């Protein structure tokens, strides 16, 4: 029998989520103010401000993939149920932030390049990474219990794709702005960018805590149901 929810799991502490949500809210407000206050870029104008949303989301897509791969690794080779829950929570967040990247990117691209989409290396790789995370979630939702190990394998294959995403600008000819663009920002823009990155990371952590709490609660519920069935069988 697969041990889905251990009764020794730590009960959910809502204070941790409330603190994380409070910090996230403050950081998001500060980031919005900093973005509004940041100087306008000369060529792109206000459209450049998508950058403060797009890049943090792209970073969180990568973070989600790595966390998902780490959780999958501990599940696949160490049998850690907690690792499996971490992987699922991170994969769902990866799908969410990946969607944000793939919506905000084309909006900027339309203004910068005149088209919404270009089949160039970084865009293609980001799309692939997002599709792999969707594949992970699909396997978990519809594959049954036997597909949990397959989902972990998908996560590890997706992690292999991450270096391809990040360094593809160097490997392929690309029109996408390269990784050194942050260092060239003027001080007002740089502060807004780092604050935005921090606020979005805090948002990711808050959502991750909430998602993990839901997964743990579900695990405990399944465990309680199993124990109830066993108790009824013993009584009868």
């Amino acid at each position, binding site marked *: 029998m*697969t041990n889905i929810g251990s009764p020794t799991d730590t009960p959910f502490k809502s204070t941790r989520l409330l603190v994380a949500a409070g910090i996230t809210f403050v950081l998001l407000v500060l980031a919005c103010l900093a973005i509004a206050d940041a100087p306008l870029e000369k060529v792109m104008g206000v459209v450049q401000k998508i950058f403060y949303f797009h890049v943090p989301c792209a970073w969180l897509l990568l973070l989600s993939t790595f966390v998902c791969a780490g959780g999958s690794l501990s599940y*696949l*080779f160490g049998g850690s149920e907690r690792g499996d829950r971490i992987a699922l929570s991170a994969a769902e967040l990866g799908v969410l932030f990946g969607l944000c990247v793939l919506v905000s990117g084309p909006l900027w691209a339309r203004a910068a390049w005149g088209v919404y989409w270009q089949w160039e290396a970084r865009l*293609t790789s980001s799309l*692939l990474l997002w*599709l*792999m995370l*969707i*594949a992970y979630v*699909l*396997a978990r939702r*519809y*594959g*049954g*219990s*036997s*597909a*949990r*190990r*397959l989902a*972990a*394998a*998908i996560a*590890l*294959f*997706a992690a*292999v*794709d991450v270096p*391809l995403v990040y360094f593809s600008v160097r490997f392929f000819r690309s029109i996408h702005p390269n990784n050194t663009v942050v260092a060239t920002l003027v001080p007002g823009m740089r502060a807004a960018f780092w604050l935005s990155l921090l606020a979005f990371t805090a948002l990711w952590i808050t959502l991750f805590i909430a998602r993990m709490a839901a997964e743990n609660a579900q695990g405990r519920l399944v465990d309680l149901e199993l124990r109830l069935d066993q108790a009824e069988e013993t009584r009868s």
Partner: protein
Amino acid sequence: MNVSFWRYTMLIAGKDLRIEGRSREVLYTMGFSAALVVLVFSFAMANATDPAQGPITAAGVLWAATLFTGTVALSRVLDRERENESIRSLLLSPVPRAAIYLGKLIATAILMLMVEVLLAVLVGVLFSAAAFAHPIWLVTILVLGTLGFASCGVVFSAALLRARSRDALLGALLFPIVIPVLLAASRATACLFDPLAPDLEPVGFWTRFLLATDVIYISLGLWLFEPVVAGD
């Protein structure tokens, strides 16, 4: 990996190929499906092909058909182990799991390559592509692309052996992972199919990319096959 490891690998590959040689079930169904996929693309794009886009279209059709029909080979090669629960016997036998993986990979790749030769001829005829202008390069790309596809596919197909809606899930889960292989293989093939400017420099680049991807995917497959099939 010693001599007995490779012996086990070849025994497993040989067993699958021998079964296929007797029934020819996978080859016939795959071959027919592959021909149908090429014909469907051909009908859908009839009179609409731009001569400049011809090699790109032909290469794209060749690899799309390979991927679609490759899932048939993957399903059947592993399905045979599900019948009579022979997968349990195979896993209980003192054969290294990596040898089982490599044996299945070799058998699947050989079946796919046999169908790909038919596909290349069909694409050459229907899309007026110079399919056999550089036969050695074409075979190299076909082998590397097929290995890249099958290296992931064998792990996925084995993991889905007992899953519900297995056939629907296999393609949906596998295709996002193997798209880098599809991209590299179809770009290299498009350069080969172009009779006017057969520039082999990009072919070399994409072939090296495919080789690197194959090494990564096969290493991952060897590493993941045991925990993926051994569980539950």
